[in-house]
């Protein structure tokens, strides 16, 4: 009987300790969560779920972009392989804080979004996938406003299809 008793009290203690730990973790999360997010820029999960480029831009920045000839995009006229399309962007705009790449006809429009801290050049080159012939849109956030450039890239072999 004593053994059962011990077993019972040990289990009870474990449960209590467990509850205590959970409570501590729960409380601990609250003050640390915002600090963590600020130090480790949060991944824009929702923006990467949007199907259209307009919804993705809205989700990412909460505003719309206006076309600007100060945003220069370098992308091929024709991409032989949609799985690897080299696209780069540069801009003469000042105070650039972010640059994003979108493909209108992809199942998920947003491809990549880059944070540009002060001191980093507003020039980015990367390689993206394109399901089919589509407009490629580059959005530059500068001085709190959004500027964009659009170019159609023809794809002969898609990079997202089955």
């Amino acid at each position, binding site marked *: 009987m004593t053994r059962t008793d011990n077993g019972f009290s040990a289990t009870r203690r474990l449960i209590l300790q467990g509850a205590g730990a959970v409570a501590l973790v729960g409380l601990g999360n609250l003050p640390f969560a915002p600090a963590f997010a600020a130090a480790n*820029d949060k*991944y*824009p999960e929702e923006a*990467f779920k949007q199907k259209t480029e307009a919804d993705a831009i809205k989700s990412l920045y909460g505003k719309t972009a206006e076309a600007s000839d100060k945003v220069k995009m370098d992308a091929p006229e024709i991409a032989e392989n949609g*799985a*690897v*399309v080299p696209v*780069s962007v540069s801009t003469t705009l000042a105070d650039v804080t972010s640059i994003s790449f979108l*493909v209108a006809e*992809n*199942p*998920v429009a*947003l*491809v*990549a*979004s*880059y*944070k*540009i*801290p002060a*001191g*980093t*050049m507003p*020039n*980015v*080159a*990367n*390689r*993206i*996938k394109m*399901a089919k012939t589509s407009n490629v849109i580059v959005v530059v956030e500068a001085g709190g406003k959004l500027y964009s450039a659009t170019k159609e890239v023809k794809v002969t072999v898609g*990079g*997202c*299809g*089955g």
Partner: protein
Amino acid sequence: MASTIRVRATSSGETTEVQALIQHPMDSGFIKDSKGELIPPHFIQQLTFEYNGKPVFVADWGGGVSKDPYVKFAFKGGKKGDELKVSWVDNKGATDTTTAKIQ
């Protein structure tokens, strides 16, 4: 295991140009395998470059970035011999980190 990250950082005196190539499948979740079944999404979500303990470039990526992704950027400053820290995390929680000497 060898690092998945290959990075080259070159200082021109005033600026440092950084090129990175990472080994990763970058599966979007929309492509079917040879049996006609969808390959589940598996892609890098965030790639961070830090210099002197501060981020100089942060990439948020979706499944639309090409397999074995490549990215190029440049930042002001950066001395030859200094270290640049590069790390990524993918949608399954896997991570990798490396440091490169600026050349």
